[in-house]
């Protein structure tokens, strides 16, 4: 029986225009459709595969505002068994260190966790450090950037792939934390039965106080970093058109060399 916790996050849909608020430069959650981050769908899929191959229970854990229940419901509709939702006004604008503390404390509330699975990086914050920080806080071995994951008895094996270092093969004793990359799998679509069952699955909600964390340790005013200013992406410039009069290939090569792209 493997007890798996999957960290999930609700993010603005990458297909919509994403903005920061003008007042405090935190994420403008109203401006875009909110979805379960795709990398988390892969994390959930991986957990479900482990569960289906043997036995186990999959708990999804989400830190986010009340409307993040939609993202939680999506994970439950895919087949996760239950959820933990940490929702507190005080968390608004928390940095990744504070967020990781909250996650670690919430995991601490659960009985006998064998494996924590996270996405390697959320598509909004892009910090990519939460899995490692959570592992440090919990004293778990961290096996990050996994494109392959296998649980064998009381050990977990991971193929770790990064752009700089190639592939490394990692192994650790459970309990452990694994973060997955987008190459790990193709997430399933929720079945109709999964969708209908999702609403009946238990979701436990916590405030930061419930987790024994002081509101003064989290939130925007206590963050170690702050966004000073933000400006929208400049509009795309018109490209350079190359007419092919027999010399098109040469001209394109010259252009690429001029841009130091080749």
């Amino acid at each position, binding site marked *: 029986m493997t007890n798996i916790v999957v960290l999930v996050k609700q993010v603005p849909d990458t297909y919509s225009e994403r903005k920061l608020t003008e007042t405090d430069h935190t994420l403008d959650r109203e401006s875009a459709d909110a979805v379960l981050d795709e990398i988390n769908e892969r994390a959930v899929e991986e957990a479900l595969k482990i569960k289906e191959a043997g036995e186990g229970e999959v708990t999804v854990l989400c830190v986010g505002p009340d409307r993040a229940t939609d993202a939680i*419901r999506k994970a439950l509709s895919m087949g996760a068994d239950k959820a933990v939702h940490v929702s507190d006004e005080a968390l608004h604008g928390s940095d990744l260190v504070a967020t990781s503390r909250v996650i670690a404390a919430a995991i601490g509330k659960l009985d006998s966790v064998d494996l924590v699975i996270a996405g390697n990086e959320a598509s909004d914050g892009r910090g990519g450090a939460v899995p490692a920080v959570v592992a440090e806080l919990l004293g778990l071995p961290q096996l990050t950037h996994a494109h392959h994951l296998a649980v064998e008895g009381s050990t977990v094996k991971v193929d770790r792939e990064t752009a700089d270092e190639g592939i490394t093969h990692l192994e650790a004793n459970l309990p452990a934390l694994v973060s997955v990359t987008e190459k790990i799998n193709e997430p399933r*679509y929720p*079945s109709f039965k999964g969708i209908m069952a999702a609403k009946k699955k238990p979701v436990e909600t916590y405030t930061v106080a419930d987790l024994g964390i002081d509101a003064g340790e989290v939130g925007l005013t206590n963050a170690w970093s702050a966004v000073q200013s933000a400006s929208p992406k400049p509009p795309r410039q018109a490209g350079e058109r190359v007419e092919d009069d027999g010399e098109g290939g040469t001209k394109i090569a010259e252009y690429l060399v001029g841009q130091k792209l080749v």
Partner: protein
Amino acid sequence: MSTTMTFTEPEERTALRKAVFDLGSSFGHDYYLAQARNGGHTDELWDAAGRLGYLGVAVPEQYGGGGGGIGDLSAVCEEFCAAGTPMLLMVVSPAICATVLSRFGTEEQRDHWLPGFATGQVRMAFAITEPDAGSNAHNITTTARRDGDGWVLNGQKVFISGVDEADAVLVVGRTTDARTGNLKPALYIVPTDSPGLEAKPIEMDLTSADKQFSLFFDDVRLPGNALVGSEDAAIAQLFAGLNPERIMGASFSLGIARLALDRATEYAKVRKIWDTPIGAHQGIAHPLAEIKVEIELAKLMTQKAAALYDSGDDMGAGEAANMAKYAAAEAAVRAVDQAVQTHGGNGLASEYGLGAMIAAARVGRIAPVSREMVLNFVAQHSLGLPKSY
């Protein structure tokens, strides 16, 4: 009793729509067009949708289905169309055939067929239209006569969808009433490999992955259990199947309309001729805004029809289903036309796929029942005007 009326779908319906749209989009309109243009089908998508229970949402849970209603099934149909992957057999196989068998089939028939409908592994075509009996079901001449314990079927059907993909066809025929000697309607399940059944493809100027067929029944021998339910329930059976067909027809049109409107608005946002995107010009913007209104109105009526049907109000659902089918077809025809206009020359370039949608949208005005027959229904039943035929 609560007096509050809600006009939003339950969370689960919204989640179902999203999941179906995502699955359809992972295949996409280009996949659909490629299959249709090369004479292929959309089996991979059908099977995936079946495994996820999307095709069996309305089949009772005891047979492995989702236990939902036509409201759920029509949402699935609409979302696949809106994602650019319409599946015409959804209108007949799970909507008409599974509904008729679920409500009127014998226990043996339900046990045999419904688990397959729940997973999409069974596909059943539906045959009512005849060359000389288009919308007039009283002129149906396909006739079954008793032959020992079984039946012998003779006759002809036309414009039957997806016969080459189907395991069986649900055939509306007639049989002799033992008491009066008159012919009365009766429904038969006819396996597509039955000796004496010939299916001839009809050449259509439609870009569709589901083909049309003429069917010829030449002394097709059927076992006694081919008759659906009891011999005397056929009229009720037909009504049970035809309302879902109209609701599904409306949803099919709604999905096409949404796809066309999405394509048009996306294009109008980015296409610049002078300094501003063409969508800023009222000549482009207002027709698209009007179409948005028409789609929402038609969708609301479709949801009403489905809700009435699912609540067991067959008669009330009839009027709403007819109106929804009419409104959705009109919205789709207009949406596709305006999408083509918004795209200019690109609107008819194969790459954009809108030209193929012109004929597809046009089907909604003709099938499953013509616009004129819907208007006849409204004139007579809703307005009480005299009948002309």
